[in-house]
């Protein structure tokens, strides 16, 4: 039982008599180690009673990465609403809720696993685990429990195929991305993006019971969009990925190569984004919106590619920042266009 005597817990440790201070355990002589361990285990229970700060409900909610969840709610809802089969509103609500909860659970598992690097990087220092408000073990317990609940409940509310996809998504994000690829390959963002791309597909499957071309295109839209979006962020968020040992492309292959990657992935994204217009979920409105958005996104990627690092540094990464902001709008408007097409269908306007 490791006691982390920093920050808010230090008061507790000070109250204890010196030989029993749980923070001294790592330094204790080997002979007495087991005794110290036992004492610290007994104190682990006491600590929950005595510690100065108790994690409130909000701290546990933060474990679920609410901002990521809001994107999941939106894309899952679109995937569910544009499907040709319509669910009862209560079922649809439950489906979106449990897809979001599953995404939140994988976020909690990610925070448990990545607590050691989150504490190094400034962007993530304020998260509940690295800031000491919630213990890493609690994040693991909540992540596992919510994973189970969300998968079972999605299965009961809709169908087993959707539940299986959700379970795979959680596994993919928590194990394949967080535990394996994030720290071993600079393509981590590319593959990790798959986890974020599943929600609309799960929404579609929750309604129809099977995967289709439309579901795959919605998946590919987010999947191919993630790398340019994240690398644009990585270019101007000069973070200490290096110190944390995360092989970001900007660190391993340099910033020039990252700019090229952004352009290449943007070009690869366009056929999927525009191509979706010619399926059952697309239509003239989507096609028009998509063409405009893709032209602008491509122009942004081109400008990023053309820029030299010195120029970018001089104007404080103005282009990179604007492309990053636009990329959020890009995804939001694409899915909104799907929704508009679906909403107009009953009146004979949506679709082809």
């Amino acid at each position: 039982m490791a006691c982390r005597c920093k920050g808010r817990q230090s008061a507790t440790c000070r109250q204890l008599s010196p030989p029993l201070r749980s923070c001294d355990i790592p330094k204790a002589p080997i002979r007495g180690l087991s005794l110290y361990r036992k004492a610290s285990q007994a104190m682990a229970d006491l600590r929950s009673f005595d510690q100065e700060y108790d994690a409130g409900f909000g701290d546990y909610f933060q474990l679920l990465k609410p901002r990521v969840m809001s994107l999941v709610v939106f894309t899952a809802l679109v995937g569910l609403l544009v499907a040709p089969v319509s669910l009862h509103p209560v079922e649809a609500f439950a489906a979106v809720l449990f897809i979001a909860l599953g995404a939140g659970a994988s976020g909690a598992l990610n925070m448990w696993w990545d607590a050691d690097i989150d504490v190094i990087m400034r962007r993530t220092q304020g998260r509940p685990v690295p800031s000491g408000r919630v213990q890493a073990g609690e994040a693991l317990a909540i992540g596992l429990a919510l994973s189970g609940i969300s998968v079972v409940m999605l299965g009961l509310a809709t169908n087993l195929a959707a539940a299986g996809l959700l379970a795979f998504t959680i596994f993919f994000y928590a194990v394949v991305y967080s535990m394996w690829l994030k720290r071993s390959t600079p393509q981590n963002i590319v593959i990790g993006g798959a986890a974020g791309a599943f929600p609309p597909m799960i929404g579609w499957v929750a309604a129809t019971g099977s995967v289709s071309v439309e579901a795959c295109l919605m998946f590919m839209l987010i999947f191919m969009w993630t790398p340019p979006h994240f690398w644009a962020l990585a270019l101007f968020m000069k973070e200490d990925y290096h110190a944390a040992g995360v092989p970001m492309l900007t660190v391993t292959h340099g910033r020039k190569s990252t700019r090229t990657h952004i352009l290449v992935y943007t070009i690869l994204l366009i056929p999927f984004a525009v191509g979706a217009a010619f399926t059952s979920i697309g239509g003239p409105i989507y096609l028009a919106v998509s063409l405009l958005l893709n032209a602008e996104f491509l122009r942004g990627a081109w400008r990023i590619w053309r820029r030299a690092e010195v120029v970018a540094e001089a104007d404080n990464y103005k282009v990179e920042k604007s492309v990053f902001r636009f990329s959020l709008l890009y995804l939001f408007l694409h899915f909104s266009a799907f929704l508009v097409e679906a909403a107009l269908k009953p009146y004979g306007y949506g679709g082809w």
Partner: protein
Amino acid sequence: MTFRPEHEIHRRRFSRNLGVGLVLAAFVALVFALTVVKVTRGNPMAAFDHRLIAEPAVEEKKE
């Protein structure tokens, strides 16, 4: 009879306890709503299901 003064931990944990309580209540409500939706869909139960002499169509199904 006197009550012991409330332990201070109850006050500290109020936000957590209230949050968990509300979430559980909402979960119960959702499961109930889901049950109602799923049970009432499809063929609703008819009164003659329970009669001694059932309708022929129902009789055939039972065999």
